[in-house]
């Protein structure tokens, strides 16, 4: 347990509480209250992120504490964007995703500020991480929709279409971000280390996650909704590969590589 007795910590705990309360009120039918509390949670998360930025004096994307805080903040705007523009709902699940993302930020990851090592002092650092974080949140939403589809749940969200279509829409939104993350990382690798591809474990896992979605998209283009359960399984496997890319490789000491500074 790494409890944070700091101002940023207070804001993080406020966000967790707000997201959790918003989730409970939304599933009990008080949607408007849930929305208001969800927004309040986002404001607290954004304030924590901004404070962290000010505190460490660089964009806070360096370690798991900062990356998960960033994702916890992104949940709300992406949730609203998907509902309003793509008509993909699942906001209650998004609130819970926010809680799950911020729990390790508040209680597990250490928050000591770190200085940027030379390799991270590159203009590509921020866009590379930012597009990955956006894609990870979107792909998590896609996996939730896929999970509902596999469970044969009745569509209780405000999706105009079914869960399978919602999964596809989410992957169509997230895949370009995932591709940009991979390519920006490769370009940055060339600038910093001289190789656009270093066969580093994290690089290989990120390639594997990208390829799972490539497989999904090929299957979806070729057969449409004919094999919808396979489509949904691939969407969930894609998220599993993302989780491994994001967590396991960073936390594990088994796979030494270029990305171990992020642990």
């Amino acid at each position, binding site marked *: 347990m790494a409890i944070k007795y700091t101002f940023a910590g207070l804001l993080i705990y406020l966000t967790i509480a707000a997201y959790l309360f918003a989730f409970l009120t939304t599933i009990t039918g008080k949607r408007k209250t849930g929305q208001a509390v969800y927004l309040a949670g986002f404001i607290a998360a954004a304030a924590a992120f901004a404070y962290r930025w000010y505190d460490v004096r660089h964009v806070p994307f360096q370690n798991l504490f900062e990356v998960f805080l960033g994702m916890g903040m992104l949940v709300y705007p992406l949730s609203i964007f998907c509902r309003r523009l793509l008509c993909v709902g699942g906001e209650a699940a998004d609130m819970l995703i926010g809680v799950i993302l911020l729990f390790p930020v508040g209680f597990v990851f250490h928050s000591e500020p770190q200085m940027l090592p030379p390799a991270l002092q590159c203009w590509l650092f921020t866009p590379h991480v930012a597009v990955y974080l956006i894609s990870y949140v979107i792909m998590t939403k896609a996996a939730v929709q896929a999970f509902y589809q596999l469970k044969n749940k009745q569509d209780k969200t405000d999706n105009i279409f079914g869960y399978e279509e919602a999964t596809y829409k989410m992957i169509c939104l997230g895949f370009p971000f995932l591709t940009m993350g991979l390519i920006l990382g490769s*370009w940055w690798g060339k*600038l*910093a280390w001289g190789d656009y591809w270093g066969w580093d474990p994290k690089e290989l896992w990120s390639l594997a996650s990208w390829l799972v979605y490539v497989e999904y998209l090929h299957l979806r283009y070729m057969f449409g909704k004919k094999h919808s359960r396979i489509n949904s399984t691939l969407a969930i496997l894609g998220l599993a590969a993302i989780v491994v890319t994001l967590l396991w490789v960073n936390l594990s000491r088994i*796979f030494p590589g270029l990305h171990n500074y992020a642990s």
Partner: protein
Amino acid sequence: MSAIGLLIVLSITGAFYGAQKAKLIFNSIPLAFYWYGLAVLFLAGLVEFPRLLRKPGLFMIHTGCLLAIAGSMWGSQAGHRLINRLFGTQKIPGGYMLITEGTAEKYVTTEDFSRRLGELPFSIKLKDFRLEYYQTDEDSVPQLYIQTQDGQHLQLAARAGEEISLGQGKGRLKVVRTFRNFKIRVENDKKIVTDEEGSKENPAVEVVIEAPDGNSHTRYVFERFEGFSHRENGLKLSYVSEGPQMIRDYFSDVAVIENGKETAGKTIEVNHPLHYKGYHFYQHSYDSEAGKYTILSVTSDSGLYVVYAGYWMLCTGVVWQFWFRHIIRHIRGKNKALI
């Protein structure tokens, strides 16, 4: 689709072996056949499925992947060997250069410098190598550690003018000055203490111990020669000139020498390599003891711009296919509805 599935399995397997072994696996002969096969599949796909040619997004995605694979193959060790044999060139795929300050080097070697891999058509001269550290905080200021006669441990920032009480009735200790490189010269039979210019060879601190009776003694505490620290008055003194400092960046000021003339120059730092006549030079390592040499990694740029072109096509393709196409369709649909 099975080719994609196979690459997923290979990527995950490679991740378990670590970067070095994975690099060998993915550059092995069986995998070389796989890459050729994949490139052929992309070409065949573009020919076989007219939809891939009709849809700009899909065309760019698949052509982008094809270019990235082709560029990587061109830039590989085997690609270099083939091009050198076909065109009679002598391009070196990559390697390392150790360059001492003030000297020029044109040989590219293996990482342990045991074997020469080739000779560049120009030399790289290292004018200067330097490090930049993050600004230190209060904890990183030189520190003087004091153990008093009664076993009390005290700590004092080793800055001129700082002083500390050694306990009631035990006097005071005052810092006079610090030295990066402490030396003693003898002039006219007089010992003169100086702080010599140059590297930080002998860090030390000069202190004055004021006894309660008003007498004072000057003492020198050496960081690297703790045995010289005086135990007078029962005091044990030790000096640490700097805390753990974090390097902010490495800089190698280099010049390119070709036909005896300086034709280019650059300060190479991490994320800012030198590019000259088909080669990139990166800051790789340095002389951590005395800072007298730098180690640059050298890579050929063969195939690099083909890979970059592939990246741009892939990126533009996915953005077009998954975002813009839908936005345009949505706008057109709205306009039709309005009409």
